[in-house]
């Protein structure tokens, strides 16, 4: 069913430079497929991701946002991923309250050796978001007209 109306979600993935971005590179090196709907933004650490970035993504029409960081205890900056986990827990429950389903947001730990996990995670996340359909809840239409 390769119709014109087929829904293609917009997914923003924030990946920390040291583990997850390297994990994404490894997925590429191993030619592991995942949907092109995922676009990766490189950040130094998962704790660099300001909740505002995620709100901005939803405001601009993203259908899902995923944040990937080093496994707990493996953070290049020792504690960054713990901060990220705490901040995102709060943010995601607030987003859920605003009507952005919990399934549209995710925090995942991907190490630099887990190319396969990165691809599997992205496949799963895209499938989940696709099932949920388009996200209109926070989208600011004024941004689109520009």
């Amino acid at each position, binding site marked *: 069913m390769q119709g014109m109306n087929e829904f293609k979600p917009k997914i923003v993935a924030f990946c920390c430079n040291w583990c997850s971005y390297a994990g994404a590179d490894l997925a590429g090196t191993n030619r592991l*497929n995942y949907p092109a709907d995922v676009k990766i933004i490189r950040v130094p650490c998962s704790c660099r991701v300001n909740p505002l970035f995620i709100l901005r993504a939803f405001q601009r029409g993203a259908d899902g946002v995923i944040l990937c960081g080093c496994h707990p205890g493996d953070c290049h*900056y*020792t504690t960054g991923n713990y901060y990220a986990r705490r901040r995102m827990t709060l943010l995601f429950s607030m987003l859920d309250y605003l009507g952005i389903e919990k399934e549209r947001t995710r925090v995942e730990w991907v190490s630099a050796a887990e190319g396969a996990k990165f691809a599997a995670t992205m496949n799963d996340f895209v499938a989940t978001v696709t099932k949920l359909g388009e996200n209109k809840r926070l989208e600011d239409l004024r941004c*689109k007209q520009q």
Partner: protein
Amino acid sequence: MQRIGVFVCWCGSNIAGTVDVKAVSEALGREPGVVYSINYQYMCSEAGQNLVKDAIRDQKLTGVVICSCSPRMHEATFRKAAASAGLNPYMVEIANIREQCSWIHKDMATATEKAIILGRAAIAKVQLNAPLTAGESPVTKRALVIGGGIAGIQTALDVAEAGFEVDIVEKEPTIGGKMTQLDKTFPTLDCAACILTPKMVDCAQNENITIFSYSEVQEVKGFVGNFRVKIKKKARYVDETKCTGCGLCTEKCPQKKVPNAFNLGLDTRRAIYIPFAQAVPKVATIDPDYCNMLKNGKCGVCAKVCTAGAINYQQQDEIIEREYGAIVVATGYNPIKLDNFEEYAYSQSPDVVTSLEFERLTNAAGPTSGTLLRPSDGKHPHTIVFVQCVGSRDTSGCGKPYCSKICCMYTAKHAMLTREKYPDTDVYVFYIDVRTPGKNFDEFYRRAVEEYGVHYIKGMVGKVTPRADGKLSVQASDLISNEQLHIDADLVVLAAAIEPDKTARSLGTMLTASMDTNDFFTEAHPKLRPVESPTAGIFLSGVCQGPKDIPETVSQAGAAAAKVIGLLAKNKLTCNPCVAHSDEWMCNGCSSCEKVCPYGAITYLDKEFRMPDRTVAIRRVASVNEAVCQGCGACTVACPSGAMDLKGFSNRQIMAEVDAICKE
């Protein structure tokens, strides 16, 4: 507006095979701000790099976007190329269209579309890039080693050997640490003093090494390359420069009933003392808790007998301030207190001893001159029970959850030496597991069993009861024969768990060096950076990082020294320019950023500000030390006023990327 050049790489067919590179460079060429856009077979090749350099010069580019492989691969290459063409290297951004596009997608149309979006995101980011300059800071060519045990000694010797000055700060009156108290060392059984004391003397004689004994670190300020440390030299009431270490005072002092800490209280010493014969520095110290002269002004015998006139009852603590480029933590360990293990009757019977006490009981320089005698009645013990894992591997809260690592081997050593010297003794060792992973370690343990007939029993001792006849009744389980044993022992030796020295926690706070829940210092990377603390310029040596035996400690000490030498050999440190930066006008001085910073890079200053109404206000604002900041960005999110931002990954840059990706 930036003048941006876009360079799309084919990477042979790696990218061009699935991405229509021509379409990408055309599409990106139409983006606002882009003045030049081409594609080429191998952008990273000499010719490709020249394309970039030429375009920077000819087109007067202010920003460059390379659509190629991962920035982890060639970001540095292209930054260097840009720099050589006169463009600030941080004006280069990479769009990863190989690992994150061409290699994972099979459909040309999809991959091309994604490549264009990734390119757009990079262009959007580079629009907001600002030239960054890596700062430089000088390096003080001197190292501080905190702790003068074997770890600290080895690090100091190795650093001094390379020609750098080293100071050792040791809180006891002599360097040498725990190793001075040991008798023999496993698995070769050479005598600890024979191999350690020459190294101690080397330290004293090395002109690059200064020993601050009986001293403690009181304050640490500064950062990598530029630490300022206050050292408190405690009053020892003896002039170090005058004392010859003759020891006459320690013989004449009338206060004889002071528990001898060096022998773990198994005998007594005088109020003025030299811990042991080979002490370095060999200088007497007065114990102010016991000295009659210091307590009530009546005595003064030591001052009378001292021919060098070294005694000074008026001596005060002295604060010394020194500068260092690197700091090595080598604070070592102590056996745990056994208050939580009353079932072993340690506090009830003098014949229940710890393994370290057993070392003193068998040491030729110990209280019994090396003859193994029971502390209670001075008789020769015939049955000795060794209990392993006392407080180790204990998650019940009474002990420590980790394995203390050294106990299996030293217990095997004790058992073997006892059987060798006193073949008439029965020696039992109760173990949970015997862990002997080390060169010649398992062979050593097996020798204890096979050649020396030590009874190794898989099981634990449940209870030790002192009896009226002086025997210790030991109740234990033998899990292999599945029976409960009752042994009448003369001596019970407990392999107490080891824990980091009590001073480690406060030191860790001073150094902003992170520690685990057990107060061991954490390493920057558990596998790849095992001797560095995550805090730049702080290095770890010995048991302060985790339980270790002597060979391991010495190799780690050498590794730490190598890292220190590498640091001190530099004249200037180049800092990572992608660091946090606070806008002083927006900062409200709330301290949120300071609290989340894992490196202690943020401090607060009271600064004068000329306000719009021409008044001058003093405001408390955050200030980032760029030499210490590692650029994680935790503070930027914690900042409630938006004053804190990260250079190279600023809020606006990341939002611009988000916008570009989400655009239709």
